[in-house]
């Protein structure tokens, strides 16, 4: 059932939860999480939020997201650790990962070699991110 069922006053497309693509946001930046949750829900995505790599890993196991948005610089388990854990458990490559990072003095090639699908430097444009999610999500 992919049809749009209703349109609410702020223009959010209402589709059943089963049909919504799930986006897992792993970032410690709370305003960013709030912004992404609001914007992605308006575009019909189901949004899962995690504050670090540890929470992200748990959410990944439980909710099986279609796309992961990942910050690299986070407290506790950071984005690099998260990618490494995925690599160790053989989960890397199963879900498209978009790295959102203000710390791109790191070599983008090194990030992409970790199995990341795309890199978006902060601050980024929301429409660009949404296009990327649409393009990458199965």
């Amino acid at each position: 059932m992919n049809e749009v069922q209703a349109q609410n006053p702020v223009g959010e497309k209402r589709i059943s939860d089963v049909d919504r693509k799930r986006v897992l946001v792993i970032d410690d930046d709370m305003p960013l999480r709030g912004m992404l949750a609001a914007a992605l829900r308006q575009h019909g995505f189901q949004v899962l939020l995690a504050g670090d790599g540890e929470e992200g890993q748990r959410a990944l196991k439980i909710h099986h997201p279609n796309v992961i948005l990942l910050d690299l610089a986070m407290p506790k388990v950071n984005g690099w650790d998260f990618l490494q854990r995925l690599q160790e458990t053989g989960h890397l490559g199963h879900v498209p990962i978009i790295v959102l990072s203000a710390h791109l003095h790191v070599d983008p090639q090194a990030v992409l070699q970790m199995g990341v699908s795309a890199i978006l430097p902060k601050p980024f444009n929301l429409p660009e991110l949404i296009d990327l999610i649409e393009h990458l999500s199965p």
Partner: protein
Amino acid sequence: MSGVAQKYPRGFLRSYVRAKLATDPVYDAAFECLRGSELPVLDIGCGVGILGMYLRERGFTAPIVGIDHDARKIRVAQRVAIGVEALSFVVSDARRPISVRGNIVLLDVLHYFANEDQKAILRNAAEAGVMILIRDAIRDGSLRYRLTYAQEAFARIGGWLKAEQLNFPTRESIAQSLNGDFEHEVRPMFGRSPFNNYLFVFRRSSAGTTKE
């Protein structure tokens, strides 16, 4: 806009919100600037979330996130925004870099920060902002300025404001921090108050001109 005030708890807070909306022209001015834009709005120093609630009441649909360092106010804002789409409030530091490009609002915020912090906030806003709305009282030595200072100092003593300092910006310090990439205009925003408030509207542009 009595509908907005009705969402706040009875008593002082509801009266405060009702009075703010009735006497302060900045909410309508902000709406007029933002209307038609689909870009997300970051409301820095959102307090109890009046602007976000007001924008929704006026039919503004873009995502809005309000941040404030005061957890008490954020809790109030979160409560009143329950069920309101694409409007959220979180405790955060105004000096943090901004991750998403969009419209940025700073109402009565800068004067709580030292000069260097004000510059950092404006630098971050300049990096991510497409339109930046700044309302603050301007330090120009006028009677209005002195009244504003006295009122803020009183609010701090009363505990409503958790501010460590009062450091009102000058017109020049705001304009210079955002020079270059933005066109800007400055409007008096006195309303029915004795305070020395001005609204600075910065719009990203390659031209960088000024209207007064």
